[in-house]
């Protein structure tokens, strides 16, 4: 009897391990940072897009106001797709959309806005990508919904109609 317990338990343990690993295969291995935690927005210094003047982040983001920070770039193809949605968002409600121009050639960026329109209330530039890191972003496009100097929600990748509806619900 005693001899039988050991092989039997070994088989069961291996079975359990196999099951756990097999289940693990189904999980996505692509990691995305947490998008729902509320975080204070970072403090940084940057330059204004059109004038090239130095601005402080505290001047761009006022308390008690809702902002949508959108990280974009003229070389980013998904940005081109989401741009009409931003234009609509800008027209339909009083949401302040702030643009952050990410590692871009300013001439190209200006042409991009001329071609597709400018939904942004204000644009600042991030030439070396370090401000994006302050925000915890890792690519373009990314959008942050901000209220009272706090990030309420983070959208990684281009916005779509569903997400725009969600934003409209959130800001009501």
């Amino acid at each position, binding site marked *: 009897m005693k001899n039988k317990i050991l092989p039997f338990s070994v088989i069961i343990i291996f079975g359990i391990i196999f099951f756990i690993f097999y289940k693990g295969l189904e999980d996505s*291995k*692509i*990691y995305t*940072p*947490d998008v729902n935690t509320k975080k204070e927005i970072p403090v940084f210094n940057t330059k204004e897009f059109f004038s090239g003047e130095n601005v402080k982040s505290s001047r761009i983001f006022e308390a008690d106001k809702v902002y949508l920070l959108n990280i974009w770039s003229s070389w980013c193809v998904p940005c081109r797709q989401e741009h009409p949605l931003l234009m609509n968002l800008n027209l339909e409600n009083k949401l302040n959309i702030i643009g952050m121009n990410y*590692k871009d050639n300013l001439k190209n960026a200006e042409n991009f806005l001329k071609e597709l329109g400018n939904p942004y209330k204000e644009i600042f530039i991030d030439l*070396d*990508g*370090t401000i*994006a*890191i*302050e925000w*915890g972003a*890792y*690519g373009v496009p990314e959008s942050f919904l901000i209220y009272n100097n706090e990030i309420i929600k983070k959208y990684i990748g281009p916005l779509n109609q569903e997400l725009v509806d969600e934003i409209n619900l959130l800001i009501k």
Partner: protein
Amino acid sequence: MKFLKFFLIVIILFPLSSINAEENDIRNKITKNLRCLICQGQSVYDSDSEFANSLKIVVDKKLQEGLSEDQIYEYFKTKYGEWILYDPGLNKNTYILWLLPILIFLIGGAIIYKSFIVKK
């Protein structure tokens, strides 16, 4: 005179270059322990993506500001979560990861002890 000049230049440059090397060492060590989120599976050190290049700049800046290695890890952890570190610390999410090998070692040791040593 020429020799003196050369000597002076060597003396002036030597400590600077060694400081530089030290800084590069720590920078490489840190970027090797940071995971690139764009090209998952690569470290920031290995990657040449936009994100990784910016991260290297930030690491340089933080080192210049005088932050220690752990402080820099802590900074990135608050921005991107524990996952960005290849070498995660011990906390409630990772204690199984850290303790499982020890547990397996102990159980294995117990089995060996029971079946080989006690039997004799």
